[in-house]
Every structure is written in structure tokens, then in C-alpha cells.
């Protein structure tokens, strides 16, 4: 398969509008706000990725990164992650699991399914901004997929933060 084209977009899958707003605020502080597409459940996230349903006509190319909440209606985040990482066409897309949970089983499941990073949403807004900005900076602003070593390095700070 040819290297996936990149849309330069960031997909944020998050059902809670307040989190969406806070995340967008945080990303906009780093001028990434305009690059974000937001979906509010797992089904839409998959529709977005497969360019089907309401997202049928979106511009082609994979998002630079998917920020994926775990607890979502319809299809939850872990299911989305599972399908993405199982699909050869999609598995290249970096997925950062964004969650309120520090539960070990979630963290383990996320990494087992091939999640690239796991970030517990910090309570403190500033920390949250920093965390989101960091994620956006790594995957949103760069126009190519990070090398393997880089990805591994990114996985580590995510884990540490939990």
C-alpha cells in the first residue's frame, strides 16, 4: 500500500461538549484549533476515518492524529481503536487515547490494541493545555508520520503521565 496521504487535520472523538470546548481552547492556544474535526461518538469517528455517512465528502487523506476519548456512546473508544489498528489502511494513523481514567485495565487495553499514547486528561487546565498542545505539536503540525523510535518515545511520556 502506498504511504497514506495526510489531510493535516486532527480528529477529536469526544462526546462531552465541555471537554470538546476545553480541548479546542487548548489546541487553539497553539494555533491548532482550526485544524480540528470533532465527532461525538465512536460510530462517527469510524465514519470519519472511512469517509462514509456524514463524512463521505470530507477531503481525502488520514488525519495527522486521532485524539480518542474512551467513554463514548454507541461505539466506545477502545472499539474504535481496535478497528483502526486492525485495518491495514488505518493502522498507520497515530491514536492518542485521551481519558479521565487512570484505570490500569484501560491503560493496558489501550496499549494492547496498539494505541500510540495514553494521556489522562489533567484536572488542571494549564496542564491540559500543555498536554493537548504537545500532542498537537507532534502529530498535528508535522506533515509526516513520526519514525518508529519517535513513536516509542512518545508512548513513554504518555505512560508516565498516568
Amino acid at each position: 500500500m502506498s504511504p497514506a496521504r495526510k489531510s493535516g487535520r486532527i480528529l477529536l472523538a469526544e462526546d462531552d461538549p465541555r471537554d470538546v470546548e476545553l480541548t479546542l481552547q487548548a489546541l487553539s492556544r497553539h494555533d491548532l484549533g482550526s485544524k480540528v474535526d470533532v465527532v461525538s461518538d465512536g460510530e462517527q469517528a469510524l465514519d470519519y476515518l472511512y469517509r462514509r455517512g456524514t463524512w463521505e465528502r470530507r477531503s481525502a487523506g488520514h488525519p495527522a492524529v486521532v485524539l480518542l476519548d474512551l467513554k463514548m456512546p454507541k461505539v466506545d473508544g477502545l472499539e474504535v481503536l481496535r478497528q483502526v489498528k486492525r485495518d491495514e489502511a488505518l493502522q498507520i494513523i497515530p491514536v492518542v487515547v485521551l481519558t479521565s481514567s487512570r484505570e490500569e485495565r484501560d491503560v493496558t487495553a489501550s496499549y494492547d490494541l496498539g494505541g500510540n499514547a495514553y494521556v489522562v486528561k489533567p484536572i488542571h487546565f494549564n496542564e491540559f493545555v500543555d498536554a493537548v498542545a504537545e500532542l498537537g505539536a507532534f502529530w498535528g503540525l508535522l506533515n509526516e508520520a513520526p519514525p518508529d523510535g519517535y513513536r516509542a518515545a512518545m508512548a513513554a511520556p504518555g505512560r508516565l503521565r498516568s
Partner: protein
Amino acid sequence: MKARRQSRTGKRGRPAPRPARLPADFRLLIDNSPLLIWLSDSSNHCIYFNQRWLEFTGRSLAAELGDGWLEGVHPDDRDAVRLEDLRGFDSRIEFRLEYRLRHHDGTWRWILDQCTPRYDKRGRFVGYLGSCTDVTELRDAAANATRWQRRYEGALQASGWASYELDRAAHRMMWSAGIENLIGYAPQWLTDAAGWTNHVHPDDRDELRRQLDALLPGEASSTLRYRVRHRDGGYLWLEDRVSCAVEDGARRFVGFVSDVTERVRTEETLRRSEERFRLATDVVNGIVYAHDLDTDRVECSGRLLEELGIGQRDQVLDGATWLRTVHPDDRARVRAVVARGRGMAATLDATFRLVTRAGAVLHVYGRMQVIRDASEEPRRVIGFLVDVSGIRLAEEALRMSEERFRLAAEAVDGIVYEIDLRSGAVARTGRLLQRLGYGDSLAGTGQAWLELVHPDDRELSARRYASLLAGTSDTAQTEYRLRDAHGNYHHVLDRLLVMRNEAGAPERVIGCSLDISALKEAQQQVLDLNAELEQRVADRTAALRAANQELEAFTYSVSHDLRAPLRHVAGFADLLRSHLAGADATAQRYMETIIQATARMAEMIDKLLALSRVGRGEMHPAHVDLSELVSEVREELQPVVDGRPIDWRIGPLPTVRGDRALLRGALQNLLDNAVKFSAGRAPAVIEVSAAGDAREHEIVVRDNGAGFDMKYAGKLFGVFQRLHAPGEFEGTGIGLASVRRIISRHGGRVWAEGRPGAGAEFHFTLPATRED
């Protein structure tokens, strides 16, 4: 010696001896002598016989030379001549021979032959000279005397006696012929005193010698007894009446001995019998008595006399004294028995009481017999008494024991039974029989009993019984259901004891059956209760599991759902703050407080979740080096320490078995506390040490910080319990609760000691493992 014998007895093939050549005057001298004279050379050949000898025997010199002369000696004397010859020639001393030599008229004449050694001028032995006298007439006179002596000896011998003469100085002894009858040796073998002593039993020799030494001449004879060995090897007892006389200045003893072996044996037997008799009266603790009715003397013996206090064990009493020892209440009866006994021949017996001088009462059994004279007049009463107090006590004890046995059978509410295996007879008794409706006692065979056993239990019961009889064990126990007369079944516990004979074959079975129906019922109840309890435990466990799952779900949702709104408050408060940049200070302070409060709440939620994870998470036990763990934690605490001077005193710490992450958490909390609460000290001293034994390790974390009041020690480990105001020390009040949970999950204990201002000590224990 041999040469002599050969020379005298002659030997075939020897050249004929030749007569000696004698000096003429010597020859003349001996040829004219009235005595019969012979000469021998140094090698003991007879080399000459004088004229008188040749005239006497009527033989030629040539015939007599060498051993030829022996042909004229009486055949019965030849051996004696030879024997005596040997001794004489060998020792080269003077000696005498007496033998019969044939006269030329054919009669035997007794010859006394005086033999004298001859020496030459230089003193060399050259042979013997014998000068012989015809003593036949003399001997005839002596023979007369000897005849008398023979008669005397014959009489002595016939009476079984023998006599002897002993010359101790010369070591000579002369026995009469009777000795041969006694000990099997002829007198001629007993001529030597030392030889005789050898025949005496070694144990008796010293005594014999001592007694002979003590015997003085002229005193009346002494009677000695000693053992002498018979020729056949056995010993016999000799009685020796010996007296002593002085003859020619030497003491000579004359003794008459007789065989008293039989008497000694009889005496010994009698002595033993008496001793047995005495021992027997001792053993039975009795008295043997003989009451002479004429003299009214009671000769009695027996140790019981001592016990009665009426004297020694051998005693002579009068009848009245004797009767006084009888218990006053029994005297009339005893008198009546004795009176009755005088009128009849049979033995009589009675049991009555004796009173000791000390007042104790003895039960005795007496048996007596009246001895009558020829005219049937009673003369004596012979009898014995035996102390039977012990036997009476035993009888009483047996009676009591049987009574107890009967009462016990009543008391246990069971059935006691006995089966005689030889006759098959069964005897049963016990109150349970009545309750079962089978009357006072139920006899019958074992088979009849088995019919009453519940069919399901019958086989096992019968098998147990059979294996008890066949086996080596003496006891068995079975449980079965037994049908009563109304057809209801009772649970019965049967214990059996088998009695065996010496060969091990079973003879009797003693058993006891107990009604354990109530017990069985109770047992069943317990079983039911247990089952119910187990069900309840299972239910509770399931409920608990459900509650746990619920709790897990709850903490999960807390983690998610509670945090989310909090995050939103915090997030939007922050956003709001940026909009309040121009607002007044009070509004901004309010804003700050909101943000801080949310942060604090978030922290508490995190800690609470951490605590719940400590309780729920799976343990991963491994060997954990506590020293290593402490240095890791110290490293991590550097930011908290923030350059403060802290005197760390870390002692040697053990390696324990536990979950590394959890233990790390516990140490983290404790050291963090220690650092935190010793903030005001310069320097702060934090000590970590270990002690313990084979069972457990005890770890102590000590600081010299703020300490605490022991009355709040119990609250320290509770959730959200804080002993210090938030302004004093930061903290959520969850750390020590986590520590407690971690340590208790490891099977340890945790406690704290402290005083306000004097520091705190936190102790925890961990079980020691064998690998440690």
C-alpha cells in the same frame, strides 16, 4: 630300673649269666654262713648264691644265677618281690623282703630277706648282698595273731566300718580292709597320709587338719565329719571317731570311720523340710500348733504369733492364753467347735477372728484334727490357722465391684452382655433392654440378636464381629440400628472386648451397647446446620463478590465521571480567570480559591482511587530487597526534601517476599511522612531499621519531627484522618490508610508510637519466609 627288671625277670636270648669270681676268704665266709646269702652286681644281676642257699633250694648255682632263682619263689609273691625289689634297688638303701621260697622238700618256706648294698674300697656301688632267714615258724605265730586281726577286721568290715592308724610325723597311714568297701581303694593304696588328704573334699581339708591338730593325746575321741571322694568320683560323708595317743614320742591317731552319707542327706532333707515348713507358715501368715490335752500346753510356731503380739514365732502357751487371742464374740463358737471335734475323728474347720495385742482384728481360717491314743482317748489337737483378712477384703472388693458393675450398667442406660463362645450362651442386662421392650434380660444366641439389627447394618456388624474374633485386636466398636419390640429402630453404639485364653483363642466377649439415638440426632442437626451455614457462607461470599464488583464499578465511575465535571470546573475556571484579568482583586482571589479547591479535590480523588487499587489489585509476590527499595524511595523524595539537611540513618534491612510495587508505595508514604513532619528540625533525623525473629521482620521508620499524641494513634490509619491542620502540614489523610492496607495484604501488622514534639515511630511487620 628297667635293667633291673630285665635282669631279674630274665629275657629270652640272653647269654647265661656266669657266677662271680669272689675272693676266696669272702667266699669261704659266706659259704659257711648259716644264712642263705646271695650277691648281685651293680647292674643287678644275681651273680652268686652261697652253699646254704643251694642246699636249701636243692638247685645248682647255674640254675639260680640271673633270674633263675625266681623260679623257686612262690608265684603269688613274685610280683611283690619284683615290686619291692624295684624300690630297694633303685634307692640303693637297705631293705627287707618277705617271700615264700620252695624248699628242696617241696614245701614253701617264708624267707625274710635282708638286702644290703655293697661298695668297693673306693666307695663305688657294686651290688647288693641279701641274707635270708627262714621265718616260717615265726610267721605261723604271727599268722595266728593276724587271723584274729582278720576276724576283727571282718567284723569291722561287716559293720560297714573301717579303721586306720595315722602317723602324721611319718606321713604314714594304715587302713583296715573295710576302707575298700567304703571308698573303693584298697588299704595298700592309702598308705600315704598326704595321698589320703587328697581324697578328702577340698572344702573339708582345712577343717579336718584343724580338728586333728586340736585333738590332744589321752582325750576322749572326737567325732569328725568330712567328705571323701569315692573311687567312682562321687563324694560320700564319712564320720570319723578319732582319738590320739603318743607312741615313741610321736602322735598317732586311731580312727574308726563309717559312711554317714545317707544320714547327712536325711538330716539335710529334714532341715530343708523344716525350713520349707517355716517359710510356708510365713508365707500364708499362719500358725501351726499342737495342743497337748493332758498338759494343756500349746506348742505353736509361725510368724502370725509375732503379729498377734503373744511372743516369738516358736512359742509354748497354755490353752487359756491361746483362747484369749480369739475375738470375744467368736470364743463361744470356737469352744463349741473344739468340743465337737473331740467327739469325732474328722478334721474340722472354722473361720473366726483373732485380736492382736494392739487391738487389730484378723480374720483367720483354722483347721484342726484330734489325735487319739489306742483307747480312742483324745490326746492332742493338731491344727493350723491362716490369716485370711486379705482374702476377705478381696471377696468384699469383688462383691463391691460386681455391685458397681451392675449399677454402672444401670447408669449408662445401655445393655451389658457377655457371650460365652464355647457354649454360645449370651447373658444380657441393662436398662436399655427394658426401654426397648425386651424385659429385664434377654438371653439367646448372637444370631437372634443379629435379627434385631437393621438389615442395612447387619452385614457390616456381623463382619466386624467376625474380624474381632479372628484378629489380634481385643477391642472393637460398631454402630448399628437396633429394632425395639415396637418395630422402631434405635441407633446403638456397641463396644466389644474379647477375652482370649493363653493360646490366644477367643473365649468370651464382653460388650456394652449404648443407645446413641439422641446423639445421632444431634449429629444430624450439626450436619444440617453446617450445610446451612455453608450455604449461607456461599451466599454471603457471592453477595460480597457482587459488592466488590459494584465497588469496582463505582471507583471506575468515580474515576471517570467524578473527575470529568471537576476537570470542567477547573478548566472553565481557568478560562474564566483569563477573562477576569481586569477585574478587582477580590474576584480574582475567589477565582484562585475555586481553582485550588478543585485541584485539591482532584488530588483526593486520585489518592482515593489509588487506595482502592491497593485493596483490589492482584498481588505479584517476589523477593524484595528493602534496602534497595528505601534508597529508591529516598531518591524520589529529593524534590520534597528540597535541600533540607536530613540525617538519614538506614540500618541493614532484610529481603522480604511481597509485591514490590505495593511495598514501595508503603515505604513511600512512610518516608514521605517522616520528611514532611520533620520539616521544622535541623537537622531532621530519619531512621529506618529492622529487627525480628524467625517468624517475622519488624521494620521501624522513626523521625524526630512533630510527633503526635498517642491518644489519636488509633485514628492515624483511617481514611482522611489528619492530626494536623492543613496549614501545618500538607496531606490528604490517605497515605497511612494505604500503608495499613498494603501491610495487612502482606499478612503483617502496622502501628505507630509518638509524642507531640518528640517524633514518631511507625512500625510494620512482614512475615519471614523460609527463603529469607
